[in-house]
């Protein structure tokens, strides 16, 4: 232990990647040092690791003792608080690995890079051709194995994801998209809202069919668009790229588990659901009932995130169902009556780092001091200058639509798959 502590002092630069290779015995964390306190090892690693660093640990899982040691490692990382954003598990044959991403989620975003991105990275930085690794192989590691999920659920039977079982619950009622309609919202200056055409029971899935078809803008796509917007390209019309950013940011929400800048954008009319002020939320995640803009004060360790609670930074069961679980979380929080407007909790769409800013913004809107972006646009005298992104989006939509209202144009967008797709295709 002493010599490893000395290592921390000997390392001048921050370490980008740490590999911990296990010995043949599960009782030896590495290299024959059998009695090392894993939490202390993680402490030292955390002292050394850079902000975008990655730690990989080879963890056998054959025996109960192996699994216990694996969870010791996980607890060691979780005990470091916000230092580690996400701990994942992946498998190759009988070999099992834990990979922990430090708070900066750039690395996590690259982890979810597509096959071509990985192959490009190999081309860029690997000199000797790799025998085995390529972009397709890397895709397999993005999801933990079913065995990892079973092990986790066996040891965490009370975990919400494990209780839900695999996939989406066939017994839970799914409110068809035809049961919703778009009308003028009951909230002043909020534009359109979504209303129930038929009553539905609490617990029913909401917007499920549209959600699974939602648009997912990956970290790399957003990075590409950002580079173009911020770059000095004379022959590129930056406006349309700003439009895409506005579309993702204005109508999507940050997909925290896929890196820094990934966005999910609802595909259908669900995107017109307004925020429920002062705890009036009636659809969405169950956790949204405990996260209200009016009572929100500051970021704390107890904040709900996509992962539910901070202790579930490591959750192979959830990691295997990130997208479907996200859609499945959208449920009716209470019985919904015919003609009732439904409200979501926008706080649950925001990255945890931006929650305070989001809470302040929503407070201003809820108190009537400000209005939403679309309403601001409609009331603005200089639309193109004040809201260039939205203006270009609406201009783009207006070319194929005779409507003049911003709301109507946006409604036509979400109702027309072709138009929605064309917005994204512009970027490609």
């Amino acid at each position, binding site marked *: 232990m002493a010599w490893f502590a000395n*290592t921390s002092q000997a390392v001048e630069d921050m370490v980008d990647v740490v590999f911990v290779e296990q010995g043949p015995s599960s009782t030896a964390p590495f290299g024959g040092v059998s009695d090392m306190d894993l939490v202390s*090892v993680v402490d030292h690693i955390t002292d050394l690791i850079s902000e975008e660093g990655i730690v990989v640990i080879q963890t056998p899982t054959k025996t109960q003792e192996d699994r216990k040691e694996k969870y010791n490692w996980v607890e060691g990382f979780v005990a470091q608080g916000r230092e580690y954003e996400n701990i994942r598990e992946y498998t*190759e044959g009988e070999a099992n*690995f834990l990979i922990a991403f430090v708070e900066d989620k750039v690395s996590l975003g690259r982890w979810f890079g597509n096959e071509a991105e990985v192959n490009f990275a190999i081309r860029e930085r690997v000199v000797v051709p790799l025998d085995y690794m390529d972009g397709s192989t890397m895709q397999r590691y993005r999801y933990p194995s079913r065995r990892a999920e079973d092990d986790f659920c066996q040891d965490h039977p009370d975990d919400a994801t494990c209780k839900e079982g695999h996939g989406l619950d066939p017994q839970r009622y799914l409110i068809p998209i035809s049961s919703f309609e778009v009308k003028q919202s009951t909230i002043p200056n909020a534009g359109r809202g979504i209303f129930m055409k038929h009553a539905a029971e609490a617990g029913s899935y909401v917007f499920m069919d549209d959600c699974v078809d939602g648009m997912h803008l990956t970290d790399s796509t957003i990075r590409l668009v950002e580079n173009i917007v911020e770059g000095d390209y004379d022959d590129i019309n930056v406006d349309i790229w700003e439009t895409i950013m506005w579309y993702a940011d204005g109508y999507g929400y940050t997909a925290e588990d896929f890196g820094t800048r990934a966005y999910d954008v609802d595909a259908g009319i669900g995107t017109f659901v307004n925020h429920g002020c002062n705890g009036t939320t009636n659809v969405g995640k169950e956790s949204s009932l405990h996260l209200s803009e009016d009572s929100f004060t500051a970021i704390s360790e107890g904040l709900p995130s996509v992962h539910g609670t901070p202790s579930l930074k490591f959750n192979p069961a959830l990691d295997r169902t990130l997208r479907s679980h996200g859609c499945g979380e959208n449920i009716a929080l209470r019985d919904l009556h015919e003609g009732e407007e439904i409200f979501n909790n926008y706080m649950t769409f925001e990255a945890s780092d931006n929650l305070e800013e989001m809470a302040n913004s929503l407070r201003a809107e809820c108190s009537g001091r400000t209005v939403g972006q679309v309403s601001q646009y409609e009331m603005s005298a200089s639309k193109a200058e004040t809201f260039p992104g939205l203006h270009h989006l609406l201009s783009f939509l207006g070319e194929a639509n005779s409507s003049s209202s911003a709301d109507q144009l946006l409604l036509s967008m979400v109702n027309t798959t072709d138009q929605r797709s064309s917005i994204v295709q512009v970027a490609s």
Partner: protein
Amino acid sequence: MQSRKCYSVAMSLRFAVLALAAGAGFSFFLGRMARVYILQQQQQKQELQRSPSISTHIHPSLPSPLLGASHHVPTTTEYTSKQFHPMGRASESFLIRSHSSSLSSEQTSLSSQETSTRNHSNTASRQYLAADISGIHNRRWLEKYLDSETGVALLLNELVAKSQDSFLSYHCQTVAKQRISCTGIAPHGHVVLHVLSGRLSLDVFGITLDTKAVSRIFSTPLVAKPPPATATATKTSLSVADSVAKRKHQAQTFANGAFVHPAMLAHEFPRTVLVLGGSSATVKNILQYSTVERLLLVDMDPTWSGDCHALVATPWNKVAVQVSTIAPTIHA
């Protein structure tokens, strides 16, 4: 007109019953005799080839199955055997410990080991080794091990002794004069040895077997590929012939790649890398990345005899890789 003569037969009921009974009895007798003569004679022919309940033949010269020092015979062990009629010869030896009885009389010499330790390990290694061994010209070795069931059984015991495992039983059979096969059953695997005219096939499954130990037993090195055609006949060779063994090696390569590459590719620009307890394969995989400027190795695998200086002399690294020798076991 000739009068028609009428005949009448008077038969008592008793006569009729007796006649029927006698007829039936005679028919049954004929059928039974036919069955005995035709079918059972055929069955007897088959019995000569297939003996359903041959009692276990304990060859007096065979060694006892080896019991590992830290192992004990499971109390639920049962041993059954069924075999063709031994036109050649077959013999076997076994350890049996049932609920009601202790070890059989043959294994009394092992009872002290059996009772001294109870730390039987259930961890089964799924090692799979298949090898063809030929070109052994050590006459004394051949006479000792390959000329008799006793010798092959000794080989089995030596293999198991090197693996720190146990045998529950083994079965040897001499099919032809120079063809001996022995199968040994271990708690979590098996060893099979086939000997034919001095050539030997080895099949090991589920038993942790050090290939170096195998090489020592057979006095021949273990090589991954068959010897080249130019090799002289006197050169002893041991070649891994089974593709499963190759796949195991391949799986290890894949696993090491899966350990290193995902993180090295997910990081935006990995300059400094720290390896705790890494093997040489890990180091080599890391040094395939041109971004790496500094590599810190802590507690390198002590069995690795590689030269770090050779590894760091990678032409693609603009900045020479610095190997920090922190732990005393590091080779640098």
